């Protein structure tokens, strides 16, 4: 496949790994922000190929991992009350406070697993006597399609379609991590797909304020090795600028058409992040014009205090303070069949990536 095989090339990956080795003089902690990058690093065995001086810290960029428990419980409650819930696949096994969406489906709920939210609009059109709710989770990456579903529903005059919004934004999360007293991160690999939509201008002030290199990076082995090399090079040279490794997909200004769709439907607002807490201005909420499509308002949502499993250290994992194998429950009580927390569910969750691909390698 064009633009894929050449980025899975052994020689090119090795070239960058050698350059990292040659350039590095001291230990650096680099956080890959996106769960897709964590998955790529672990799946391709790149973590072991890196010199010991490079410590990769896994970031919060796993959309289902940071979706608040309250919203999962709300989706389950709606499902149990006859609402058709449409969701991306990896959300459905994430544990709520008593069960997951998949378990609620087994008990009789009408849960549809979709690849695109536009399908949910079709389901609403075909089921006019039912309420249809799309569980709109994700970072900036999924926001344009989710926003587009609302525009389609509005155009068709559908009154039975709404979305349960849990959209979060990457730059405020990076800032929250940098403000954390335990933060020990020296550089970031910026999330390539998020920047493909949003561009990377928003990262300039971050790099400047915190004196930290940010390299917008892709997901294939060559991308990751090159991105890490660019970060190491900046660190060794004492630089802290925004660079774009993923230039085949990312432009500085982003995807203008997609941003316009987002801005028509969403505005920035406060959001709660599972495992991290509320971060001001860290997510999207529907604009006043589209409030009729807000499932939270339509059905009411009660913010009962729900408790996470006390043995789960997902918060520390998501903030990069601990690694999955430093958790006492990892691979024992907590595994993908019986996840204590969300990072063990999605393939982009750091715990699941460690469990599947690198748990006790030899």
């Amino acid at each position, binding site marked *: 496949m064009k633009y894929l095989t050449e980025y899975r090339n052994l020689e090119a990956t090795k070239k960058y790994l050698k350059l990292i080795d040659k350039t590095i003089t001291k230990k650096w902690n680099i956080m890959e922000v996106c769960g897709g990058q964590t998955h790529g690093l672990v799946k391709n*065995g790149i973590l072991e190929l890196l010199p010991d001086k490079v410590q990769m810290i896994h970031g919060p960029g796993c959309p289902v991992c940071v979706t608040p428990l309250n919203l999962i419980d709300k989706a389950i409650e709606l499902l149990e009350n006859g609402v058709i819930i449409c969701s991306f696949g990896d959300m459905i096994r994430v544990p709520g406070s008593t069960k997951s969406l998949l378990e609620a489906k087994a008990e009789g709920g009408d849960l549809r697993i979709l690849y695109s939210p536009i399908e949910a609009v079709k389901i609403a059109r075909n089921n006019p006597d039912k309420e249809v709710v799309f569980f709109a989770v994700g970072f900036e990456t999924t926001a344009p399609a989710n926003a587009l579903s609302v525009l389609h529903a509005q155009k068709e005059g559908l009154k039975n379609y709404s979305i349960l919004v849990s959209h979060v934004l990457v730059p405020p999360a990076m800032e929250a991590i940098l403000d954390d007293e335990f933060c020990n991160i020296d550089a970031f690999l910026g999330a390539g797909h998020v920047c493909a939509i949003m561009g990377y201008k928003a990262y300039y002030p971050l790099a400047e304020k915190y004196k930290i290199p940010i390299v917008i990076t892709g997901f294939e082995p060559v991308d990751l090795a090159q991105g890490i090399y660019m970060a190491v090079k900046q660190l060794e040279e004492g630089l802290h600028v925004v660079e774009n490794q993923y230039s085949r997909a990312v432009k500085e200004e982003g995807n203008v058409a997609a941003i316009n769709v987002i801005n028509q439907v969403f505005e920035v607002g406060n959001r709660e992040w599972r495992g991290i807490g509320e971060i001001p201005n860290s997510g999207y909420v529907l604009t006043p014009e589209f409030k009729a499509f807000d499932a939270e308002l339509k059905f009411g949502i009660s913010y009962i205090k729900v408790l996470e499993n006390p043995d789960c250290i997902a918060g520390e994992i998501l903030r990069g303070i601990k690694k999955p194998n430093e958790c006492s429950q990892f691979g024992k009580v907590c595994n993908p069949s019986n996840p204590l927390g969300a990072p063990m569910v999605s393939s982009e969750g750091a715990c699941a990536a460690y469990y599947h691909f690198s748990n006790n390698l030899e």
Partner: protein
Amino acid sequence: MNKEELGFDTINLGHGSGGLMTRDLLDKIIFKTFSNPFLDQKHDGSIVKFNGPTAISTDSFVVSPVFFKGGNIGSLAVHGTVNDVAMCGAIPKYLTLAFIVEEGLKIEDFIAIVASIKEAADKCGVQIITGDTKVVERGKGDKIFINTTGFGEVNPKANISTDNIKVGDKIIVNGFVAQHGMAIMSQREGLEFESTIESDSTNLNFLVNDLIDAFGDKIHLFRDPTRGGIASVLSEISKDINKGITIHEDKIPLEKQVAAACEILGLDPLYVANEGLFIAIIDSEIADAVLEQMIKDEKGINSACIGEITEVHPSKVVMHSSVGGKRIISPLIGEQLPRIC
């Protein structure tokens, strides 16, 4: 047979009552299609004779959608069980055939499925010797479920057992992985995407039997990696034999379109279902000869040696990635779910 001759459009509860309507359905479709000396007795069961050890395997088929590119639930129900019998080193001879039909199934769909069962059974060289038809109320099934049980005579030259696997044995597959699962996925409601990916559903009994005839007990194991894909089957084998398995990412046959579809949906092809694929674990000294023979067969044109049995990392499957890294291949947990982004 068409629906005008039958005089009904859909299957209803009466067709599973055991009364006249059942008889009508059996006479006009089932007995007529599958007529053979066993079935023509119209008895409760059939009496068959086997020469020596007999392999028996049963499987239920619940695929949705019922019709997919490259086959339907009928051909799948034949191939699936025939292949399971063949994996035991046996020559499949007989099949049982049981339907659970949801009322309201269109009769033309039922006729098409039965015709496809007949065609597949003829190709496999098996006879349908007994069966059953039940009808359940609407909402209590999903159009049609099929159970088949297969019986086969074990090839006297075969000695298929995990006990025979030793360090150094080679792991061979007969073609592209993940074809069936991705063909089904591409037609699932909500996940549809345009592709020409076809299921690999086919019978493997002749190819497998030819290999046993040629290489006998140097072939240590056959397995067909259906649900859970090759990852799950290899994980199971490595645990069973308490030895390591190493596979090489760049050796695994993967068709371009399937690879692209897996990328889009965020699926790992190693975990996607196959219905016309087998894994052979064989003595390393015959590896070249086995491959040479397999690629001459139309069902083995894309055969490849993907790995070997190792002393190191016992009970674990480790894949060497195409960029020089290593990763554990763990068994599939739950259903494979498309990722968000």
